[in-house]
């Protein structure tokens, strides 16, 4: 292989004029983190609402939950981002479409919302499974004490269900972070985007993507460690993972 390794490349000034190549990658990393965090918040909020709907006895509620989940999980993420970014503005009334296209940071908002909604379907399914795994008597006990359905979920079912699904939720958080890289296709210059830009300017493709890989790895280690601490903090003495 005829390739000139040059690990010093990171400290050379990038042609974008905003600092070194390392600075370029770091700004991509920051954008990846920002996008992933917002997407994860959206995924948790929508996932919780839809997960609850799916666990309710009402037919209408579970149909809404079913439709939502199947819509968002059966389309490739890439297609969904294209849909929100390129197709939606065309379908809206002209003025609204133009307004959307001219939004500052449109790729960022589209990516965060798009990835967030995509992931929310997965959170919803897991939460519904977590609620379903609780003994039926838990809800009955809450109801018999006079708690309303909403209070029963808030104080009894959800605290337990979220504890139970903590391990798979960690995986979903990691997936959310990795999925933001798809946003490169709608022009979001996050970590993967910056690595590609660096490769195009410097021709040091291996260095660029090695660095990007290490950075993804680092964020994910932080997340895994954080979630492990959270899990331990929320563990119930004498119960499941509690000691």
């Amino acid at each position, binding site marked *: 292989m005829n390739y000139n390794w040059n690990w010093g490349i990171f400290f050379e000034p990038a042609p974008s004029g905003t600092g070194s190549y390392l600075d370029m990658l770091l700004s991509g990393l920051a954008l990846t983190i920002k996008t992933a965090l917002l997407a994860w918040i959206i995924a948790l909020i929508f996932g919780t609402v839809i997960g609850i709907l799916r666990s309710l006895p009402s037919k209408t509620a579970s149909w809404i939950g079913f439709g939502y989940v199947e819509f968002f999980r059966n389309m490739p993420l890439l297609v969904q981002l294209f849909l929100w970014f390129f197709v939606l503005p065309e379908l809206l009334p002209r003025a609204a479409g133009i307004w959307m296209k001219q939004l500052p940071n449109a790729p960022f908002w589209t990516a965060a919302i798009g990835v967030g909604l995509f992931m929310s379907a997965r959170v919803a399914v897991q939460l519904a499974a977590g609620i379903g795994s609780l*003994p039926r*008597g*838990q809800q*009955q*006990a*809450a*109801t*018999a*004490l*006079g*708690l*309303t359905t909403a*209070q029963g979920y808030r*104080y*009894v079912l959800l*605290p*337990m269900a979220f*504890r139970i699904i903590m391990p798979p939720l960690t995986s979903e958080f990691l997936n959310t972070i990795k999925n933001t890289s798809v946003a490169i296709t709608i022009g979001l210059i996050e970590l993967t985007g910056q690595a590609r830009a660096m490769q195009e300017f410097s021709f040091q493709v291996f260095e660029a993507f090695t660095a990007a890989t290490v950075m993804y790895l680092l964020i994910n280690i932080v997340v895994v460690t954080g979630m492990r601490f959270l899990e331990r903090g929320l563990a*119930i*003495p*004498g*119960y499941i993972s*509690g000691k």
Partner: protein
Amino acid sequence: MIEISHVNKWYGPNFQVLKDCTTRVAKGEVVVVCGPSGSGKSTLIKCVNALEPFQEGQIILDGIKVNDPRTDLPKLRARVGMVFQHFELFPHLRIIENLCLAQEKVLGRSHDEAVARGEKLLERVGLTAHASKYPAELSGGQQQRVAIARALAMDPIAMLFDEPTSALDPEMISEVLDVMVDLAHEGMTMMVVTHEMGFASKVAHRVIFMDRGEIVEDALKTEFFGSPRSERAQQFLSKILSH
């Protein structure tokens, strides 16, 4: 206090779980409901606080019609204590928090007030030392006593027991029954589904015998144990008393 008249309940179109059940429980009365498994006894008492819906007939609880759509069910349920076969304590809450939750969220008591009431009841069931433990750290008998205390904390006008000792080790049954006997002696209105004939003969005023969804026998304790009228009840009694 509790008036059950001509209650019919079906699961699906063909399976009738309750057939024309009619009975009443007067204030201060202790009624034991017994019968073979699948006879509908648990279903019947769950109809009393509307944990289970029923299609025909009516149940009136302290003058309020349970199956009236205008009835504020959470409010009504808060006035009737219920104890379950599998305790159904909330595993993520400490014992004292289990006792306080509904007092605060349903009755609107202040936290201090709820804790005071909870501590008093824990003392009564002999579990003061366990107030800050979690349910999984207690034995089955202790958990069930907490569950009784949790129901009593709502100052109920009547108590429903759904096989409160069926899930317990034999050596723990008496500690739970003792609490129930005390309650009965204090004049609490109680409807108890149980196989504990010793308890029935000690404190029940009346015994209801159910079979295949029907109330086969509804008699004073002395009559029931002395000379049950129906052959089915005779068979049942001879089997469970002879073992």
